[in-house]
């Protein structure tokens, strides 16, 4: 029973980690919480649904299409709305409100196009049940867990061992100095949005395949949980987001079992408040000193 709960939590947690990484990447570079991330996640799931259910292609194609289209949506969000604000050197609050507006536009456009009711989505990695000793694992969960793990490893490789990852880390430390070293800051920021959008799209598709339902409001609560995960691990830190995601997933799975299903969504928010009171920098965060 306990091991079942742990594995449920791990599966959810890895997917939250994928979404949380999107928050963390953008926050690390721009010091901005990207509110549109939750609706980007819902958008990704809907693209996958169009390709898989409406057009009848396989899941792999749906995933690929969703990654590309959603990644491009992320780039478009940055290019159309956020880059002009950076050029104008607007206040931070402007960018924040802009992302709130974008999130609202995307969510309501999805509602008008697809309708606000829940729709069916095919189950993914459906190969039956795998038994290891006394623990029986659903193949769907194993598939989701492994896919998320692989993607997180790829992301971490991109950030730590490639040239563009180096540029991202440089901008995170000091964007002005980075641009003086010949790094095209805007291009790197757009790439970051692409990565965020792509990982959100994958997370959206995986979760839709897990619960087998999809609706335009699905991004709202997942976005909140993933943000809690990012804050728990220390926002802006990649491995922090992963650990945070897993912890949020685990606590959700335990809360749903012991406290009742009604508290399933509340637990992430509770974690967020507790972290903010006790250690606002998160588990792995370093204290940020503001220089004048």
């Amino acid at each position, binding site marked *: 029973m306990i091991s079942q709960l742990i594995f449920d939590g791990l599966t959810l947690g890895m997917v939250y980690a994928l979404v949380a990484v999107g928050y963390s990447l953008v926050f690390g570079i721009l010091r*901005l*919480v990207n*509110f549109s991330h939750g609706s980007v996640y819902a958008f990704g799931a809907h693209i996958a649904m169009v390709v898989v259910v409406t057009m009848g292609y396989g899941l792999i194609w749906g995933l690929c299409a969703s990654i590309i289209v959603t990644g491009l949506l992320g780039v478009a969000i940055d290019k159309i*709305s956020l880059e*002009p*604000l950076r050029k104008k050197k*607007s*206040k*931070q*609050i*402007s*960018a*924040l*409100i*802009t992302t*709130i*507006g*974008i*999130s*609202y*536009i995307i969510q*309501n*456009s999805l509602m*008008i196009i697809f309708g606000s009711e829940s729709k069916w989505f095919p189950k993914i990695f459906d190969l039956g049940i795998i038994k290891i000793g006394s623990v029986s694992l659903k193949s769907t969960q194993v598939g989701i867990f492994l896919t998320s793990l692989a993607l997180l490893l790829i992301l971490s490789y991109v950030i730590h061992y490639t040239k563009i990852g180096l540029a991202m880390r440089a901008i995170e430390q000091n964007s002005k100095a980075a641009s003086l070293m010949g790094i095209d800051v805007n291009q790197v920021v757009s790439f970051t949005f692409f990565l965020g959008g792509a990982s959100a799209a994958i997370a959206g598709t995986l979760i839709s395949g897990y619960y087998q339902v999809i609706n335009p409001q699905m991004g*709202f*609560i997942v976005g*909140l949980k993933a*943000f*809690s995960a990012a*804050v728990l691990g220390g926002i802006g830190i990649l491995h922090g987001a992963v650990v945070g995601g897993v912890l949020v997933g685990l606590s959700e799975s335990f809360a749903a079992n012991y406290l009742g299903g*009604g508290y399933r*969504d*509340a637990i992430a*928010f509770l974690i*967020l*408040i507790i972290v*903010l*009171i006790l250690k*606002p920098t998160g588990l792995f965060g370093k204290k940020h000193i*503001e220089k*004048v």
Partner: protein
Amino acid sequence: MKKENKKTNIMDNFVDQINQNKKLKYALICLLLCVAIALPKIGLSSFIIRVFTMIALYAILGLSLNLITGYTGQVSIGHAGFCAIGGYTSALLNVHFGMTFIFSAICAMIVAGILGLLIGAPTLRLSGTYLTIATLGFGEIVRMMALNWDWLTGGALGVSGITRPVIFGFELTTFNGGLYYLVLVLLLLVSLAIYMIIRSKMGRAFMAIRDDELAATLMGINTTRYKITSFVISAMLTGLGGAFYVHMVRFIDPNTFNFDISILIISIVILGGMGTMKGIYLGAALLISFPECLRFASEYRFIIYGLILVLMMRFKPEGILGGQSKKPYKMPSGIEGDYQ
């Protein structure tokens, strides 16, 4: 593009002129008040009166959000949660204990203020983004509680049978214009309270925090305390708005105040102008009357709210009536010399 600039300049000049000419300003305010008072007496249909009531209600909500977002610079996107708290408190006190509107509304304000303190105290110590996220979650938690705590809130069925506000044995309805006058009085009181707050030492501290939090700290302002004060006052006034709404429609359920309402309130503030009071009245009038005027567009109105947020931030972040006054700075009396 150039033409656009010129237009806004004319608008700004007009606003500046009114600001400079005190007599003109007071005359305009008196005129607007007279029009507002005379509205129900000139034979408008009760539908139109209801629209005006909603405008005044949303002006209250906009003003209270403006206190924290416009004057103190902290974005809250969960103000519908405080509306719901105020609404439920007032409704339950009214239905179970027979409290009249005035007392139940005061209780609603107190409860909303306490919750504002509970949310604000941990999150306002940090940078503003955390408040935004916490309020987003707060709005959702309130909705979930309203849905799950059947014993208190009636769950999805909501609370019905709330009585209309009664003052001196006189029942206020939309038909006799009583509700409209009540909301007008509330709006005046709220406006007066906020005007006095922003003119006081506290208000100057709020604006200092908005403009540069670090500099405000260095000036010896206890930023956390002022931010929390601002947030609590804002929550209380929002709770009052929620209480009024509930007594007007005589029903509340978990979806009465959802995330759309939070976005509507913040759109009003952004469109009219953060950190102005006149802007909020204009914003409320525009955004509440437009779905009524343009029925064909009402399906898209939520997208339009989103577009307003994005476009205003891009092209006119200070809002329609916002922006810095071009009035030359006047030295306080007693200071002499050449400070140009």
